[in-house]
């Protein structure tokens, strides 16, 4: 199987993630979709790393994982805070500021 297919798969994942961000209401799920997008990127990186035969992509993937973890920390903190003050994790409820 050509590694290129992994790239296609990654693109699919990325799209699923993006669409998930657009259609899901729950902040946690939205956030997970973002993570999905990051992972799609990881997959792409690894696949291209394979294709190009160098390590850069793989190293990048590690960095991305770390960053994603950090993002989770911050993100969850914020989402939990939101949940605690509103008793809802729906992103649509957080729409006090508009226009």
């Amino acid at each position, binding site marked *: 199987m050509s590694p290129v297919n992994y790239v296609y798969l990654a693109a699919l994942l990325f799209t699923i993630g993006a669409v998930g961000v657009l259609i899901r209401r729950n902040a946690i799920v939205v956030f997970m979709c973002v993570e999905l997008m990051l992972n799609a990127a990881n997959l792409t990186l690894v696949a291209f790393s394979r294709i190009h035969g160098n390590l*850069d992509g793989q190293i990048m993937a590690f960095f991305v994982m770390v960053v994603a973890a950090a993002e989770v920390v911050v993100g969850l903190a914020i989402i939990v805070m939101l949940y605690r003050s509103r008793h809802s994790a729906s992103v649509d409820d957080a729409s006090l500021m508009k226009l």
Partner: protein
Amino acid sequence: MSAVATAGAVPSLWTLGAEELQAPKIEYGQLSPTIIVLGAAVIGIVLEAFLPRKLRYGAQLVLSALGLTSAFAAVLALALTGHGSSKAAVAGMGAIAVDGPALFLQGTILLVGLVSVFVFAERRLEPRAHAARSLVDSFAAQPASVPGGEGEREATKAGWTTTEVYPLLLFAVGGMLIFPAANDLLTLFIALEVFSLPLYLLCALARRRRLLSQEAAVKYFLLGAFSSAFLLFGAALLYGYAGTFGYSGIARVVANADRATSTVLAETTGSDALLLIGGAMVIMGLLFKVGAVPFHMWTPDVYQGAPTPVTGFMAAATKVAAFGALLRLLYVVLPGLRWDWRPVMWGVAILTMLAGAVVAITQTDIKRLLAYSSIAHAGFLLAGVIATSRDGVSSVLFYLGAYSFVTLGAFAVVTLVRDAGGEATHLSKWAGLGRRSPLLAGVFAIFLLAFAGIPLTSGFSGKFAVFKAAAEGGAGALVVVGVIASAIAAFFYIRVIVLMFFSEPRADGPTVAVPSVWTTSAITIGVLVTVVLGVAPQYFLDLASQAGVFVR
């Protein structure tokens, strides 16, 4: 398995021989500004853990100020020793460029950070917590507590303050220092996250109107994460195209230099789709940070909800960092694609200028108004970016410097106009401010006039520089659109001035708090920079134009 796999020479982390590892060469001197700031941030965290509550404020303040000042001194030293021009080089194994634009922007960011620290440190505005004698600042007593809940009340009573904001600010500044200097996509992404994550948190820390603050944080975070995913995916595609993350490497591939030598490259570069899609997505990530239409929608909400000192810092510093990164990306990585991205950027710039100006007309909240104004200004800056000339770079650099101080000053003024509910940001409450406090209103009017680009203010010099560069770069039509947008924008800046000076003060109008020396000095610096860059900009134009060359 494909041919590549069977070649047997697939390097991986597991097969890599230890003897091939070379110790990375780090130019500590050239990276010192970043290292100092990040170091200070780490120390800040440590202090936070070990110092008693009472001492934290003072210690953090000194540490931040010291860290930023010494980092700025380091930048100065680097610039004076020619690292901005003749000795410009790529440091940190190709990760970070130390050149004119980088140093100029780092200097600007550090100054902005320093002034922001001043605004953060203001503790005279909020009423004292009655149980405790301690003064409090604009940040939440205990961010984790539920708004309006028991925990919050107790924390407030106890007079707690969130001194973590200083290390957070330092981390953000650290990330921002790297961002415009990042010389490969990996560093770019890391820097983006390093400065974004603290900002998300800072947004959530307002003492008053915590629901809005939290909402701002959520929105900023989700959308920020969303956009960084795009950036990352774009980076991955670019990597797929060029086989490297390094800017110069990609640029070489784009310029068709390396293709012949590599069969793999010949395959991946066979179609430019990877390059174009990847480039567009990376640019999109940066445009998000810049606040360009149609990636601007977070701006008003976040600017409005975030604690005003944070808004000021974010509005000024993020813009500087993001434009720095955008410039480097477009000028170093994608100059070969100029004919592809220029038309697209034209569209974005025009949309941004017009949308920002038009929507601002009907705003009723001063912070949202300034947010839309910042969108319009992003448009003007994009006009300079599109010039694709050295003049374009230096004009954008100058504009950024000028703009960031006006913004800081303006938001600092906003922190002072208060009523019982905290800051009185609704415009109707600003009616007649000129009667009650002519000095403050006058200062704010100067900032507004600078935003509007009235001559003898820094806004005018900046705008002129950018338009000049754009016109010379053949973007005369953009100048015309810019001029029209300026005219529209003038309308709402003037509206605020009218409100302040020519409307009768309301009986329940806000009071103008008398600030401590911190905010005063921040505003003073803002006014000084605004006027000096307006009246005698030549020295700074020289600086910017010397700093107008990227190292490749």
